[in-house]
């Protein structure tokens, strides 16, 4: 009997230690750069959807930014005109996207620090190369006009996801958070801002 209890204790302690070390080793899913603008303690993103196609402009954009605004993340994204915007969203034509060699994806996000783009392509050795530990003062989000989802829910999530990159969120790597995080690579997780996503933003901008 005592032996059984002892074995049980060893197994439970092992599992507990495994879980603890597993979750703490996986580091935060954030870039070292940060969004430059904050107002009243909130990450302040002024975005212009003016150059988005009708697939994304209007309610899709509105619902997309609302995902962050309605969350507990300390972020406020507002729709402004292009003269006042710090993030501009563009729908890029098929020929332009192809001529730029931007691949088969749906969208990508590009931050700028001063006048330097963090990266000039969607895939790079390390986008922080040119923006490590910098403040991002401008962002561009590009959507591919030749690869548009039928589903409004996905297009809304795409807007929220790419703006998430601009404010310094990486793809969610923590397995236990992947299923519902909006920052999971290729939107394979959730389409809404999860409590993990809120935590990532609030920890980064604490």
């Amino acid at each position: 009997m005592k032996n059984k209890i002892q074995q049980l204790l060893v197994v439970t302690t092992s599992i507990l230690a495994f879980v603890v070390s597993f979750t703490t080793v996986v580091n935060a899913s954030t870039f070292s750069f940060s969004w430059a603008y904050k107002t009243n303690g909130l990450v302040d993103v002024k975005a212009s959807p003016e150059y988005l196609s009708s697939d994304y402009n209007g309610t899709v954009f509105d619902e997309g930014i609302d995902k962050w605004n309605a969350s507990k993340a300390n972020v406020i994204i507002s729709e402004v005109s292009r003269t006042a915007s710090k993030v501009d969203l563009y729908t890029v034509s098929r020929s332009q996207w192809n001529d730029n060699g931007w691949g088969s994806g749906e969208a990508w996000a590009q931050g700028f620090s001063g006048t330097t783009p963090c990266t000039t392509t969607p895939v790079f050795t390390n986008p922080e190369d040119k923006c490590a530990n910098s403040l991002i003062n401008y962002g561009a989000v590009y959507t591919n006009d030749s690869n548009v989802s039928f589903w409004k829910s996905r297009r809304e999530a795409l807007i929220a996801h790419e703006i998430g990159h601009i404010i310094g969120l990486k793809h969610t790597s923590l397995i236990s958070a992947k299923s519902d995080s909006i920052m999971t690579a290729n939107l394979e997780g959730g389409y809404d801002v999860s409590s993990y996503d809120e935590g990532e933003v609030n920890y980064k901008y604490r």
Partner: protein
Amino acid sequence: MTFLVMMKAKLTTNIDKERVNLRKSIIWISSVSLAIVLGVSLGFVYNSNNDTHVEDNNTLTAPITNNLSEEFWNVDLIVKGKVIQEEATFQKDTGVDTKIPSKMEVTPATIEVDEVIYGNEPNKTITYLQHGNSNETAKPKHVQKNDEVILILTRTTDGQYWSYNFDDGIWYVKNGKVKSNTSEKYLVDYKDKDAKDFIKEIRKAAKNKKKNENYKQ
């Protein structure tokens, strides 16, 4: 006398009991510490073997695909060939009216075509475009002169080519086997496989290329 004997006996059992207790606690402490050490090391090993540690710095969102034909929805040409030379790097405007201008560096390479695996290309050589310059670590890595390659490509408006999707479209042929830095789920299993089999499979997929049903056609 009897009393003394009894005292001694009691003392001995007490000492024995203490010894047993001590041994018990040693066993308990060591099992628990062993369990912690075991759990922590397993946790670390699991972590390092898992994709949770892959540095994912991309901001690109790839579409939903169910098979290789859907993965190849934007493929225009697949060739097997040899790298003749790398050309001079130039600056290309992205054509997008961003408030801060974003120019990209492009380094073309001339490829001699041995075999058109899919699509139409009448010329014996093609211009294959690559992101970045050859002085810094570009990603995807640039091809080198004399490399034997299989390139899965998208055509530009002026008849030049990019990889259809970064590393996924760049394959090297070495001793009859194919090598790539792809992590694309429908391609990753072809790494280090026979080049002939790979060509057969990608030709079939490209011939049946189609967009996933969740996307506007």
